[in-house]
């Protein structure tokens, strides 16, 4: 027994090192469970508060850009108002027809923390559960897809950025309709890769890549980016397509969180089919 204690005292640093490293790697690998239970990282109160105040200051320097983007979006939305269309009264619409149910709700939020140069990038938004934000809602900006909500605390939410190797998004070529999955490779924050596009799809450089609308997260036809480079894998029959992302993640200030009203219903139904 005495030898045992002597051993422990003699190698206490090494043993402590092993214990701490094991703990760290346990955190790294059990990442999502741990993360949900104990600390919600940047969606927690303290770090959220610090980021919120700091980004409040930084925001002033970007007012010009933000204003220009908002003005452009206002103009776009105004062009979609009923008053801009010529009214035709020759159709009939039932008041509570299920065809006219509202499908999506948009909530604007401010980005208070963001990164682009890690393997797993996340954003923090200044709105949380009290504002109706829930896990798995889609996040877009005026320019296109940004990511998916991961964790929510009362006042803050963290978002898995599109620039996160853990996120895959179902995407579609706008012109031809072929769909595949879009994934970031961990390198440049301007580009992501679209896989599983079959060899007969004939994608061209410059074609738009949009969301497919298959998942219960994003609506259809939201811009993701444009094709930058097309590589045909010999023998596999699939293209690797490099997509220039339409969102500049370094200049992200305001985003919209999308709530799909029937998402829970869709997920439940799909899960039922998978279980069968």
């Amino acid at each position, binding site marked *: 027994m005495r030898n045992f204690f002597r051993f422990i005292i003699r190698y206490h640093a090494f043993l*402590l090192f092993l214990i*701490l490293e094991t*703990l760290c*790697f346990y955190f*790294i690998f059990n990442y999502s469970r741990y993360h949900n239970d104990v*600390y919600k990282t940047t969606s927690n109160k303290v*770090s959220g508060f610090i980021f919120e105040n700091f980004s409040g200051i930084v925001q002033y320097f970007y007012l010009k850009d933000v204003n220009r983007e908002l003005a452009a979006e206002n103009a776009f939305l105004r062009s979609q108002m009923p008053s801009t269309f010529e009214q035709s009264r020759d159709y009939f619409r039932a008041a509570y027809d299920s065809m006219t149910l509202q499908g999506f709700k948009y909530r604007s939020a401010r980005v208070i923390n963001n990164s682009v140069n890690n393997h797993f990038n996340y954003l923090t938004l200044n709105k949380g559960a009290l504002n109706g934000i829930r896990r798995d809602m889609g996040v877009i900006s005026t320019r296109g897809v940004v990511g998916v909500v991961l964790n929510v605390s009362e006042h803050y939410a963290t978002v898995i950025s599109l620039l996160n190797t853990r996120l895959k998004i179902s995407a579609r070529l706008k012109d031809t309709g072929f769909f595949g999955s879009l994934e970031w490779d961990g390198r440049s924050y301007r580009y992501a890769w679209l896989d599983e596009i079959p060899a007969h799809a004939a994608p061209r450089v410059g074609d738009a890549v949009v969301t497919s609308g298959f998942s219960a997260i994003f609506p259809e036809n939201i811009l993701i980016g444009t094709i930058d480079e097309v590589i045909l894998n010999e023998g596999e029959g699939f293209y690797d397509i490099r997509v220039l992302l339409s969102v500049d993640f370094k200049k992200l200030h305001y985003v919209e969180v999308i709530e799909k009203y029937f998402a829970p219903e869709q997920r439940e139904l799909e899960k039922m089919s998978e279980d069968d």
Partner: protein
Amino acid sequence: MINQLPRYLFNFVVFVLLQVLLLNNIQFSGYVNPYLYVLFIITLPFPTPKWLLLLLGMVTGITIDVFMNTFGLHAAATVFMAYMRPGVLTLIAPRDGYETGKLPVPAHYGYLWFIKYAVLMVLLHHLFLFIVEAFSFAMFWDTLWKSVVSSFFSILFILIVMLFARDDSRIV
């Protein structure tokens, strides 16, 4: 040692805030992210016991992790660096060893010694960090290049911060 406690608390807060509010927003070509917070472990006094080094490494790393959504990644790298510190110090010890009451800062042992020390520590930290982050050897050269370039900038920032050391006995 106890009278240095307020200074190190101050260092801790300043380095962490500098890291999460300013340096994490510096991104050259998507490759480089300087990690200045390691300076906290680097400048701890010579007689700091090993177990305290390791625990402080853990605390610093976890704090950075909370802000960066990385859970354990920075903690693992910083604990590793803290564990290697006594070895690195012995490796580059001056001929007559370290005097009591002095700190591992350029004002006490000269810039040449400090750069040697900082380069070794930062390289160890960054290599560990980026290899664990990628967690595969598939893009090994990518990872290596990333750690070397990031180390360069980290050391640059560390030297800049050391220029702001108030006087011989103070660090920041």
